[in-house]
């Protein structure tokens, strides 16, 4: 039997009790979710932790029936990763740690090209003073390229709130670049 690669089909199989189909779901969704988590946290190592926590939550929700399959599983996972990354950012700030950009790429094969590593360090350093919610709005809308409606769905807020966060973020970034 060929392993399924369609995320929704894999999710349906996991819900009906197949643990092996979860591997297909992870394989199909990891590339996009990993890039999102790296862009949000600025760190490949932290992104891996975010993904692991997100997939644990997803697996438990699928097995317990908490995810009923009416939404696209990829959108649902995208929302989980966004929230888990936001929590990681908030907890890093609570510990008063700085951006992780300076550590980017120190550890071997992290899937980053030299250019991506430099860009990620720049992005993390540039955005790290923004409140976590504003940083998330900037990453989702301007870096990930989501529409306001998609970003609002991922963040669990209204489109108006996304736009407001973007305006505030731009004001802060503009003031900093002018100073």
């Amino acid at each position, binding site marked *: 039997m060929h392993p399924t690669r369609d995320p929704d089909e894999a999710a349906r199989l996991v819900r009906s009790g197949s643990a092996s189909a979860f*591997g297909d779901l992870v*394989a199909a969704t990891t590339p996009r979710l990993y890039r999102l988590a790296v862009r949000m946290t600025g760190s490949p190592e932290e992104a891996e932790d975010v993904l692991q926590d997100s997939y644990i939550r997803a697996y438990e929700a699928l097995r317990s029936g908490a995810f009923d399959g009416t939404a696209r599983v990829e959108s649902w996972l995208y929302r989980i990763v966004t929230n888990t990354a936001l929590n990681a950012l908030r907890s890093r700030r609570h510990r008063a740690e700085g951006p992780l950009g300076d550590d980017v790429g120190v550890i071997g094969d992290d899937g980053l*090209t030299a250019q*991506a590593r430099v*860009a*990620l360090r720049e992005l993390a350093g*540039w955005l790290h003073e923004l409140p976590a919610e504003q940083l998330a709005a900037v990453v989702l809308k301007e870096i990930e390229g989501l529409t306001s409606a998609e970003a609002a769905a991922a963040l669990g807020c209204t489109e108006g709130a996304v736009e407001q966060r973007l305006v505030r973020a731009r004001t802060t970034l503009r003031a900093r670049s002018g100073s």
Partner: protein
Amino acid sequence: MNRYENIDERLARLRRETEAITPPAGLAARLAARVVDEAERSWLHAIARYGRRSVTVAAFTACAAMVIAGVSGGLDDVAEVSAELAP
């Protein structure tokens, strides 16, 4: 950001330059294995915890039953003796 680049241009450039981020080799397989392992372990822990609690409750129930049986038996004995001694 260089002096000729505005916010939109900088965001667009950083978007392009981070587009090529891909997961490290084998990450998906490692994650899937870890997650399933973690979930199964938490199931086993839940079962073990539930089992330990059940054994404690069963032992307590057995003790209580023995005490109640002893007390009721004792009362029955007293009643029987009283009945025998009655004229």
